């Protein structure tokens, strides 16, 4: 069956450091992969989309990599800030699928 695995433990890092979050998937052939941010009690907010033919994508302090051989995406936040504290969700998307499935997320806390 299809499975999406994100960092099982919550991630605590010091302000200014780079946070790296992992998304592994099995039994998917995604044409793209999305990352969302979710704050407590709120809906997810779209951050980045990377396609299967892209190795890396950047947006300000965010960087996403996508390795279809390893079946993995890495999400980096450089120069992290306490305001980056949230849960980050990954969602691999198959072109044939009519819906998007999300991982359970990684809770990131950036300590001042």
């Amino acid at each position, binding site marked *: 069956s299809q499975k999406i695995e994100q960092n099982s433990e919550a991630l605590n890092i010091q302000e200014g450091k780079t946070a790296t979050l992992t998304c592994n998937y099995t039994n998917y052939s995604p044409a793209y992969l*999305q990352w969302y941010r979710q704050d407590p009690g709120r809906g997810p907010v*779209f951050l980045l989309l990377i396609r299967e033919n892209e190795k890396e994508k950047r947006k300000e302090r965010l960087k996403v990599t996508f390795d279809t051989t390893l079946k993995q995406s890495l999400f980096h936040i450089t120069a992290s800030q306490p305001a980056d504290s949230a849960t980050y969700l990954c969602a691999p998307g198959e072109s044939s699928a009519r819906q998007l499935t999300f991982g*359970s997320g990684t809770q990131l806390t950036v300590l001042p």
Partner: protein
Amino acid sequence: EADIYQTPRYLVIGTGKKITLECSQTMGHDKMYWYQQDPGMELHLIHYSYGVNSTEKGDLSSESTVSRIRTEHFPLTLESARPSHTSQYLCASSESGSEKLFFGSGTQLSVL
């Protein structure tokens, strides 16, 4: 900023009551979705619609029903609420040809 609105934000109701959760978007998106999310858990798709008069059930079986009479409106109804329905309900929309989802702020439902 996404223009997708959910009401009510919080709802506490007794067992057996009929409830309707409202979701409206002003972006003219054809696709709309309802996800259910328990604390610390992944989002599960319960309903989706690709246009007016089109509704489908998602991966997670739900006793709720939906309707799509107007493009901008996608209400979810529970005919008889039970404590097992206690959860956060998130509405989302996307434009045809786009993989990016816009989420509302959610309705936190508590059934006593």
